[in-house]
C-alpha cells in the first residue's frame, strides 16, 4: 500500500464526491427557494405545479409535489435550449468565461469541516490483502493548515470570469455590468478580508477544526463579535453580487448585466456560480461565527464525539445553519431595494473599510492585553459601533446626488410643507 493513501484521503474523496452533489442539488433548490420566498414576501404562491410525473400516466400520483420538480424542469430546459453565440462576440472568451466563473465557485467548499472528526476503522480493500489503517479523520474535503486562506483565495478568483464575461459579450450593457461587478467585488473583498482578520485575531489559527473547538469552548463568535459578523454578512452578499448590491445586473439600467448576451447552459453556469458562491459563503459564515456544526447542549455535535451517527448529526446541523443563512440572504434580497451604484461603492470605501480596520486595531490591542475573552471583545465591538454612530453626523456630507425638495412630494417635501401620507381615496381603506 503506498503510504500516501491514508484513511484521511479516502474519507476526503468520499466527502468531496458526496458534498459536490449535495451542493449542486442545494443550488438547484435554492433557485426554487428564492422564488418561493419572493412569492411569499410579495403575497403570491410561487412555483407549485411541476411534479415528478414527467407527463407519464403511471406516475400520475407524483403530480404536484409542491412544485418540487421545478429545478429539474429548469435544468432540462437549460440543456435543451439553443446555446447561441452572437456574431460579434469574442468567441473564445465567450465560452471560457462561464467556465472560469463556475470553477472557483465550486471548489471553495473543500475546506468546510462538515462532519467533524470520525474514528475511521481499518479499511479492507475487497479481493486483496491490502488494508488502509484506521485513524481519526476529518470529515471534510481536505484538511490543511492554510484552510481559511485557501477559501479566500478561491473566492477572489470568481471576479475574473465576471470581467471576461462582460468583456467578451461586446455589448455595452454587459461591458458596463462587468465593470461594475468587478469594481464592486474587489471593493468588498477588502472589508471582508479585514473582518475575517479581526475574527482570526481571536482564533489565532487558520485550521477549521481548531476554530470550531474554540467556539465550543468559548461560545460562538457572533455573540462576542456582532459587528464583525454583520460586516462579514454584508460583504458576503455583495461578493455574490446579490441584492441589495446587484448593480451589475440592474435590469432598469443594464438589461441583464454581464450575462446579457448569454443563453442556455452558459447562462445557467453564471447563475450556478452565484448560488454556489452563496452556499459557500453561508457555510463560511456558519464556520466562523455560528460554531460550525456544533450546537450547545447537544452532545452528538460536540467535537469530541466521533461516531458515525455523530458525523451525520453534525452534517445535518451544519446544513441547517447554511440553509438558514441563505434564507436570511433571500429575505434581505426581497425586502430591501437596490442601492444606487455610487452608494454601493461609498458603503464599501467610506463606511465598511474604516470600520473593519478599526475592528482589527481594537481586537489586536485586546489580544495583546490578553483580554480576548467574551466580555472585552463584545465591549470593544459595541464601543466602536457607538463611536462610529456618534461621529458619523460630524463628517462632511456630500452635496451631490442629494434629495431635492419637491412641492407635493411624499418623500422629499418642501421645508414646512404638510405631507399627506395616508390614502385619501374613499376606495382605499386603512389596513387593520
Amino acid at each position, binding site marked *: 500500500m503506498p503510504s500516501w493513501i*491514508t484513511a*484521511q*484521503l479516502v474519507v*476526503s474523496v468520499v466527502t*468531496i464526491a458526496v458534498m*459536490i452533489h449535495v451542493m449542486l442539488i442545494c443550488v438547484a433548490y435554492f433557485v426554487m427557494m428564492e422564488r418561493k420566498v419572493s412569492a411569499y414576501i410579495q403575497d403570491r404562491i410561487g412555483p407549485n405545479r411541476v411534479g415528478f410525473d414527467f407527463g407519464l400516466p403511471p406516475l400520475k400520483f407524483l403530480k404536484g409535489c409542491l412544485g418540487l420538480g421545478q429545478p429539474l424542469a429548469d435544468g432540462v430546459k437549460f*440543456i*435543451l*435550449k*439553443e446555446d*447561441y453565440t*452572437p*456574431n*460579434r462576440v469574442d468567441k473564445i472568451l465567450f465560452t471560457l468565461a*462561464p*467556465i472560469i466563473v*463556475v*470553477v472557483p465557485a*465550486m*471548489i471553495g467548499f*473543500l475546506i468546510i469541516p462538515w462532519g467533524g472528526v470520525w474514528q475511521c476503522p481499518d479499511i479492507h480493500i475487497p479481493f486483496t490483502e491490502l488494508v488502509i489503517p484506521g485513524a481519526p*479523520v*476529518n470529515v471534510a*474535503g*481536505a484538511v*490543511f493548515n492554510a484552510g481559511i*486562506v485557501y477559501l479566500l483565495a478561491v473566492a477572489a478568483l470568481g471576479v475574473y470570469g465576471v470581467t471576461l464575461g462582460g468583456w467578451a*459579450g*461586446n*455589448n*455595452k450593457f*454587459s461591458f458596463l455590468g462587468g*465593470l461594475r461587478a468587478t469594481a464592486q467585488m474587489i471593493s468588498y*473583498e477588502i472589508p471582508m*478580508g479585514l473582518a475575517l*482578520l479581526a475574527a*482570526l485575531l481571536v482564533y*489565532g489559527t487558520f*485550521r477549521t477544526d*481548531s476554530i470550531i*473547538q474554540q467556539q465550543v469552548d468559548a461560545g460562538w463568535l457572533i455573540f462576542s463579535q456582532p459587528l464583525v459578523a454583520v460586516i462579514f454578512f454584508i460583504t458576503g452578499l455583495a461578493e455574490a453580487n446579490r441584492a441589495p448590491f446587484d448593480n451589475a445586473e440592474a435590469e432598469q439600467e443594464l*438589461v441583464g448585466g454581464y450575462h446579457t*448576451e448569454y443563453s*442556455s*447552459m452558459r447562462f445557467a*453556469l453564471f447563475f450556478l456560480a452565484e448560488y454556489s458562491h452563496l452556499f459557500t459563503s453561508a457555510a463560511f459564515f456558519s464556520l466562523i461565527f455560528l460554531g460550525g456544526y456544533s450546537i450547545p447542549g447537544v452532545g452528538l455535535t460536540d467535537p469530541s464525539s466521533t461516531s458515525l451517527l455523530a458525523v451525520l448529526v453534525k452534517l445535518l446541523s451544519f446544513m441547517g445553519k447554511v440553509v438558514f443563512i441563505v434564507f436570511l440572504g433571500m429575505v434581505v434580497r426581497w425586502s430591501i431595494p437596490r442601492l444606487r451604484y455610487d452608494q454601493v*461603492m*461609498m458603503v464599501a*470605501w467610506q463606511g465598511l*473599510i*474604516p470600520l473593519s480596520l478599526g475592528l*482589527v486595531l481594537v481586537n*489586536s490591542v485586546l*489580544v*495583546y*492585553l*490578553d483580554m480576548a475573552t467574551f466580555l472585552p471583545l463584545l465591549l470593544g465591538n459595541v464601543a466602536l459601533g457607538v463611536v462610529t454612530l456618534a461621529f458619523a453626523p460630524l463628517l462632511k456630507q*456630500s452635496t*451631490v*446626488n442629494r434629495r431635492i425638495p419637491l412641492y407635493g412630494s411624499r418623500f422629499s417635501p418642501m421645508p414646512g410643507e404638510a405631507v399627506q401620507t395616508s390614502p385619501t381615496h374613499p376606495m382605499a381603506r386603512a389596513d387593520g
Partner: protein
Amino acid sequence: MVLQTLASTDLQSYLPVTLVVLMAVSFAVANVVISQVLGPRRPGETKGQTYESGMNPVGTARKRFNVRFYLIAMVFLVFDVEIIFLYPWAVTFPNIAPYPNGEALIWLGRIFFFILTTVVAYVYGFRKGVFKFD
C-alpha cells in the same frame, strides 16, 4: 489530543484540491458541450446582432470608459497586499507569550506602523476624491 494528531503540514494533504478542481472543470466543460450538442442551431442575421434593447446597435462596446474604475483597482491593490501581509501575523500574534511581554509590544507597534502607512494612503486617496462616486 485528536486535533494534534491530525495536524498535517505535508503536501499530500493538498491532494484533494486537484481532485475537486478536476471535477469542477469537467462539470463546467461537460455542461457547455452537452448543451451545444443537444440544443438546436438556428442562426440568423438579426438574431446574431448585439442586443441593445431592440435598437439597432450603435458602434462597438470596445470604448473608453470611466477612469474611476482604474483608480479603484489601484487602491484595491494597496489594501489587498496589506491584508495578505497581515494574515500570517493575525494567526501567530495571539499565540506568543502572554501580556507583560516587551517583544509582543514591539511587534504590535511594528504592525500598527505598517497599518498606518496604508491609512496614510487611504487619507491621501480620500482627499484626492478617489472615493467620491458621484
